């Protein structure tokens, strides 16, 4: 159960080892790592040379902790971790990490997808891309809202 917002990069193997913490009741770990992409597939597809993430210190942590608590309430999870970076980063660098540990894979997979979908629509981060045409704020996507909405349906 942990949330971190930081400028520094992270090591996925170290994060996973810390999250499982030797708990041998854990039978599966699902992880998602988001990376900086060098080409925006929508809009006019300008080459991205760097990305800068701005956030709302204080609210970011509160939102991430709230999202994590929601996942823990919905699924039988032994451990979770969210790490999200801010500041400037280049293509290929990791931006975000979500780890979900459970006795069985289904809860780990579902909780990991849920956390990413909710994080993308609720955590107060904003991306600005450096492109050949100068800096450009990334626009929110309707598909992200739709992905988050699927977890609000009663059958979930």
């Amino acid at each position, binding site marked *: 159960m942990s949330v971190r917002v930081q400028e520094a990069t992270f090591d996925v193997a170290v994060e996973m080892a810390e999250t499982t913490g030797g708990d041998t009741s854990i039978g599966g770990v699902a992880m998602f790592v*988001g990376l900086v992409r060098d080409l925006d597939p929508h809009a006019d597809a300008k080459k991205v040379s760097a990305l800068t*993430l*701005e*956030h*709302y210190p*204080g*609210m970011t942590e*509160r939102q991430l902790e709230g999202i994590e608590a929601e996942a823990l309430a919905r699924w039988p999870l032994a451990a979770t971790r969210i790490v*999200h970076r801010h500041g400037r980063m280049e293509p290929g660098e990791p*931006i*975000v990490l979500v780890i979900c540990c459970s006795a069985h894979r289904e809860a780990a997979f579902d909780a990991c997808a849920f956390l*990413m979908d909710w*994080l*993308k*629509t*609720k*955590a*107060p*981060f*904003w*991306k*600005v891309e450096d492109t050949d045409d100068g800096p450009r*704020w*990334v*626009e*929110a996507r309707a598909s*992200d809202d739709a992905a988050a909405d699927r977890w609000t349906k009663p059958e979930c």
Partner: protein
Amino acid sequence: MKLKYFAWVRQRAGTGSEVVDVPSEVTTVAELVEWLRTRGPGLAEAFQDTKAIRCAVNQTYVEWDHPVGPNDEIAFFPPVTGG
């Protein structure tokens, strides 16, 4: 009242945060935005299209009819794009 602006709202407003004394008739987020629009061309531009702006009061998302008071921290920003 403490105001915070992020992303392009911050750029257009020309500042990331400010402390303001608002007129007593300003009691909701919507009324606050109307008042902010009158405070200069940057803020007028920032709040031109309010459909593109989200609001948080004391770090919780709220709708535009949410009440605001002198001790609140109110933030305005575009839809989030993290992850």
